[in-house]
C-alpha cells in the first residue's frame, strides 16, 4: 500500500467516523421530535373527531326530529302508511328521497313496526324489504349512533346513522337517518401527513409500509350488506401518520450525508495528494537520486533547504556521496598506479616474447658461426624471415602501446598458417610439437597480432608444462566449429601431455600475476583470456594432474572468407 493510500484512508476514517455519528444523531433526534409532535397533534385531533362525531350525531338527531314533526302532520303520509291508499303509495315511496335531499341527509329510511321499509331515500326501490334489526340495534348502540354500511343502487354507503321513532294513528314507525361518513372524515384532516380512515369487519385500512397507526377511536358498527345477519359490531376510526415526511427528511439527511461523504472523499484525495507531494515526493526523489549513484556517477546533489527530517536525510545522503567521491578518487589513483605496473609487466612480457625468437636465431647464428661459419649466410637467409617477423611484431607492439589502447583490427586470419609460424619459432628442446590442421578450416575473423599472441602464450605454456621431461607432446589442432545452425567458427585446441593442473591451480590459472612457473610473470593466461574475449571467442580448459591439459579456443569465422 502506497504512502498516499495510507494517508488517504487515514484522513477518510478520521473524518467519516464523526460525520457518520453526526448523521445518525440528527436522524434520531429528528425522528424523536417529529414523533412527539405528531403524538401531540393526534391527541388533539382525536378529541376533534370525537367531538365531531358527537356533533354529527346531534345534527342527525335534530334533523330526524324535524322530519318526524313534519310526518306526523302530513295527511298523505298518514293515508299511505295507515290505509295503504293506492293513490298515496307513490307519494310514500318518493317521500324519503325528497325529504332526504331537503334535510341534507345521505340516508333516510322509514320503517313500520314490523321493520318493513316503507320509504327509502338513498335507494328508492328498497321498499318492502324487511330490516327490523337496523332500528333495533341502532337504538341499543352506545350514544344511539352507529356506523352503518348499507348501499345505494350504485355503490355501498357508509353512514353515521341514528334512529328515532314516532307514532301515527296508534302505530309505531321508526326513522333511520344518517350522513355519509367518509366525506366527513376526510374533512377532519387538514394535515398532509395525517389521515383518518375507517376500519370495520371485512375492511382494514390500506396499510402501507410508509404509515403507522397513531390512534383508534371505537364506533358502533352495523353491516347490512354482509348477508350473514345483522349484529352490532365495532368499527374504528383509525388515525394514521404517513411516514412520508419523516422518510423524506431522512432521505434528505441521507442525501446530504452522502454529499458530505463525497466531499470528504474528494477533500481527502486532495489532502492526501498534497501531503504526499510534501512528504512522499521528496522521498521518492531521494530514492531516485540514490538509485542512480554508482562509482562513475557520484555527481548527484542532495542539497536541500528543508529543515525537517527529509532535509536531514538529504544532507546525510549528500555527506555519504561526498565520502564516496573521495574514496573513489583514492581508489582510482591506486588503480591507475596498478595499471601502470600491469602495463609495465605486460610490456616486459610482450617484449620478452618478441625477443625470444631473435635470441634463438642469434643463438643459432652463434652456433653456426662456431661450428661452420661458411653456412652462416645460408642460415641467415633461412632465419632472416624469423628475424623480420619478430622485428615486425615488436614494431607493431610498440605502435599499439604507443596508442595505449590497442585496437582490434578484425580481418580474416589464416589460423593454420599462424599455427605453423608460431610452432616454427618455439624452441621445442627435443619435445614433440605436432599439428593436426584441418584443410577445410575457414579464416577466423580477428586480429593477426592478437591471434599470434594467443597461440604463442598457449603453446609456450604447453611446452613449459612438459617441464624436465625429455618426452612429451604438444599437439595443436584446428578444425571448423559450430554448424547445425550455430554460427560457424574456428576451433583451436592446444593439448599437452604435461603435468596438468589441480583444481586449485585451475581456479587461479587466469588470475593476474599467478604462475606455477619459477620465472613466470603470471600474465600469460590472463592476457590470453582477455584477448579471446576481445575477439568474441571462448576459452575452455580441460586438465588432469599428471595427464595433461587441453585449451580449447573457439573463434568466430569470417563468413565471407574461403576455406583454407
Amino acid at each position, binding site marked *: 500500500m502506497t504512502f498516499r493510500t495510507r494517508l488517504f484512508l487515514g484522513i477518510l476514517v478520521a473524518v467519516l467516523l464523526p460525520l457518520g455519528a453526526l448523521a445518525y444523531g440528527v436522524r434520531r433526534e429528528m425522528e424523536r421530535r417529529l414523533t412527539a409532535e405528531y403524538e401531540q397533534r393526534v391527541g388533539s385531533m382525536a378529541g376533534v373527531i370525537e367531538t365531531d362525531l358527537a356533533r354529527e350525531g346531534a345534527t342527525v338527531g335534530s334533523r330526524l326530529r324535524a322530519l318526524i314533526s313534519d310526518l306526523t302532520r302530513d295527511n298523505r303520509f298518514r293515508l299511505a302508511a295507515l290505509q295503504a291508499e293506492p293513490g298515496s*303509495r307513490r307519494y310514500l315511496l318518493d317521500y324519503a328521497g325528497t325529504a332526504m335531499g331537503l334535510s341534507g341527509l345521505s340516508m333516510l329510511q322509514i320503517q313500520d313496526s314490523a321493520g318493513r321499509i316503507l320509504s327509502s331515500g338513498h*335507494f*328508492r*326501490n328498497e*321498499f318492502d*324489504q324487511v330490516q327490523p334489526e337496523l332500528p333495533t340495534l341502532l337504538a341499543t348502540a352506545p350514544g344511539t349512533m352507529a356506523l352503518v354500511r348499507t348501499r345505494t343502487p350504485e355503490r355501498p354507503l357508509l353512514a353515521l346513522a341514528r334512529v328515532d321513532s314516532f307514532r301515527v294513528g296508534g302505530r309505531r314507525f321508526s326513522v333511520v337517518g344518517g350522513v355519509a361518513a367518509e366525506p366527513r372524515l376526510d374533512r377532519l384532516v387538514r394535515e398532509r401527513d395525517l389521515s383518518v380512515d375507517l376500519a370495520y369487519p371485512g375492511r382494514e385500512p390500506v396499510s402501507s409500509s410508509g404509515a403507522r397507526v397513531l390512534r383508534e377511536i371505537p364506533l358502533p358498527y352495523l353491516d347490512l*350488506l354482509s348477508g350473514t345477519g345483522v349484529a352490532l359490531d365495532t368499527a374504528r376510526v383509525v388515525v394514521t401518520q404517513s411516514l412520508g415526511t419523516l422518510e423524506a427528511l431522512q432521505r434528505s439527511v441521507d442525501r446530504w450525508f452522502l454529499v458530505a461523504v463525497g466531499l470528504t472523499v474528494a477533500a481527502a484525495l486532495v489532502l492526501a495528494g498534497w501531503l504526499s507531494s510534501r512528504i512522499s515526493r521528496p522521498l521518492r526523489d531521494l530514492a531516485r537520486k540514490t538509485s542512480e549513484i554508482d562509482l562513475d556517477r557520484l555527481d548527484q546533489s542532495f542539497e536541500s533547504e528543508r529543515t525537517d527530517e527529509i532535509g536531514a536525510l538529504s544532507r546525510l545522503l549528500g555527506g555519504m556521496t561526498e565520502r564516496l567521491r573521495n574514496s573513489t578518487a583514492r581508489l582510482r589513483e591506486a588503480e591507475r598506479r596498478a595499471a601502470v605496473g600491469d602495463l609495465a609487466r605486460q610490456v616486459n612480457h610482450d617484449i620478452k616474447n618478441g625477443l625470444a625468437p631473435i635470441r634463438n636465431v642469434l643463438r643459432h647464428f652463434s652456433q653456426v658461426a662456431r661450428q661452420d661459419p661458411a653456412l652462416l649466410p645460408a642460415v641467415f637467409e633461412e632465419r632472416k624471415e624469423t628475424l623480420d617477423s619478430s622485428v615486425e611484431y615488436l614494431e607493431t607492439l610498440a605502435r599499439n602501446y604507443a596508442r595505449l589502447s590497442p585496437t582490434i583490427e578484425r580481418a580474416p586470419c589464416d589460423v593454420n598458417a599462424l599455427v605453423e609460424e608460431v610452432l616454427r619459432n618455439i624452441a621445442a628442446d627435443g619435445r614433440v610439437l605436432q599439428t593436426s590442421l584441418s584443410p577445410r578450416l575457414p579464416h577466423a575473423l580477428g586480429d593477426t597480432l592478437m591471434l599470434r599472441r594467443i597461440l604463442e602464450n598457449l603453446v609456450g605454456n604447453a611446452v613449459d608444462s612438459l617441464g624436465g621431461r625429455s618426452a612429451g607432446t604438444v599437439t595443436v589442432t584446428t578444425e571448423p566449429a559450430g554448424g547445425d545452425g550455430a554460427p560457424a567458427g574456428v576451433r583451436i585446441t592446444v593439448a599437452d601431455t604435461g603435468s596438468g593442473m589441480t583444481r586449485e591451480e585451475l581456479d587461479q590459472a587466469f588470475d593476474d600475476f599467478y604462475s606455477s612457473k619459477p620465472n613466470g610473470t603470471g600474465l600469460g593466461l590472463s592476457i590470453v583470456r582477455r584477448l579471446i574475449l576481445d575477439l568474441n571467442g571462448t576459452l575452455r580448459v580441460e586438465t588432469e594432474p599428471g595427464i595433461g591439459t587441453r585449451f580449447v579456443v573457439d573463434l568466430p569465422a569470417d563468413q565471407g572468407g574461403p576455406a583454407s
Partner: protein
Amino acid sequence: MLVLGCAPKPTQSPVAPQQPDPCGLVAASPSQLDTFTVALLEPVDWRSLDHALSPTNDSERLLFRNLFHNVIQLDCQGTVRPGLADTWTFDPNAGWTFSLRERASLAPGWGATADIVVESVDSAVVLDARHVRVRMRGRDSIPRFLADPALALAHGIAPSGGEPGGIELSPPAGATAVYFKFEPNGDARDALDRGADLVVTRDPALVDYVSNRAEFATFTLPWSRTYVLSETGDQQGELARALNAASVRSSLAKDAVRADARVAEPPYWWSDTTCLSTSTRPTQNASPRVVYRKDDEVARSLAERTVALAPAGSGLRAVGLDAAEFAAAVTGGLERAYVVGLPRQSLAPCRDASMVPAGARLLPLIDTRAHAIVRKGAPPLTVDWDGTLRVVER
C-alpha cells in the same frame, strides 16, 4: 281518456279508405289549428339516415314516421293499409306485386337489404318505378315487414325550415302545416305551456298535470315497450327467481317505476323467433352489475329494484351506461344482468333480438305505454302498429 286496443289481424287486401279509422285520434274542436306543433322532448338526429331507418327513441320514431313512408302501413290493430302502394296482388308463382301511387316511386336499389330485416325474404325487387315485387319463402301472407322503418323512404313531403328550432313539413294546399319542434331534455309542461300541440310522454306526472287543462285531450297509446331482465352467466335464473313472485312483479309495475306500466303479458315476439341463441356463454368473470341505458328512467328503476331484491351479499350494483357503452356491453355479454326495453311489436325479430346479449335468458318484467297529449283542434292522428302516431294526410 281514450284507450286503444290492438289485436293484430292479418289481411291481404287494402282497406277501404272511407271506413272509420279504429286507430284514429281526434281531439275535436270548433276551430282548427293553422300550424300543428309537435314537441320532440328527446334528442333527435334528423340528419342521420341510420336514425331514420332505426329510430332510437320515441321522438325520433314520431318524427321519422311522418317524414318517411313505407310501401304499406300497419295500423294499431295490425291491419294492412295502403302506404306508398295503393294496390297489391298476389300470384302464387311470382309473389306479391305492389303498385305505387302516382306520385310515389322507389329507387332501383330499394329492398336490396330486405333480408336483413326479415330472413324469410326470398327477393324484394323494384320492377319499375311504380311496381315492386316481393317473394317470401314458404308463406303466402302479405309481407308485413314492408311497414318496418328500415324499408321506409322519404316521399313527397319535403321538410322546410331546419335546425336549431325544428322541421316544418310543407303541407298540401289547404292542409294544416306540421312543425316538429326540437326541445331535447326540455320540460314537457313548459313545452305545452309555450304552445306545443302534441307531446308524447311516458311520464304519469305530465298526464296528471294536463288532466285539469281543458284545452288538451289525453290519449293512452298501446302498450309499446316490454322491459325484460336479461341474465347471463353461471348464476342465470337467480335474479329471475327473486323477481318472479306475482307480488313482486305487480310491485314492479305499480311502485317501482314512474310510468304507466303493467305486469308484462304475453305473447312476446321473441318467443317465436329462432334468432335468440339458446347457448349460454361462459361468463365466469361476469361483472356483478345490472346495467341499463342511463337515459331510460324506467330501466333504471327496474335495475335498482332488481338490486334491492337480489340475495344479500351478492354485491350487485346498478350501473347506467350511455348508448354506445350499453351496446358494447350487450355485445360483450359479460355483465351479470341487463335491463332492456324491447319493442312490444317487432316486424324484424332477428334485428331486434340483437338488443339483448346472445344466449341470455329473458324475463319479461313490465309493459309500458305512452300517452299522447293533444291540443284540441289538432289534425286527425292515427296510431301505427308499434304505437307511433302519424298525422293523417288529407
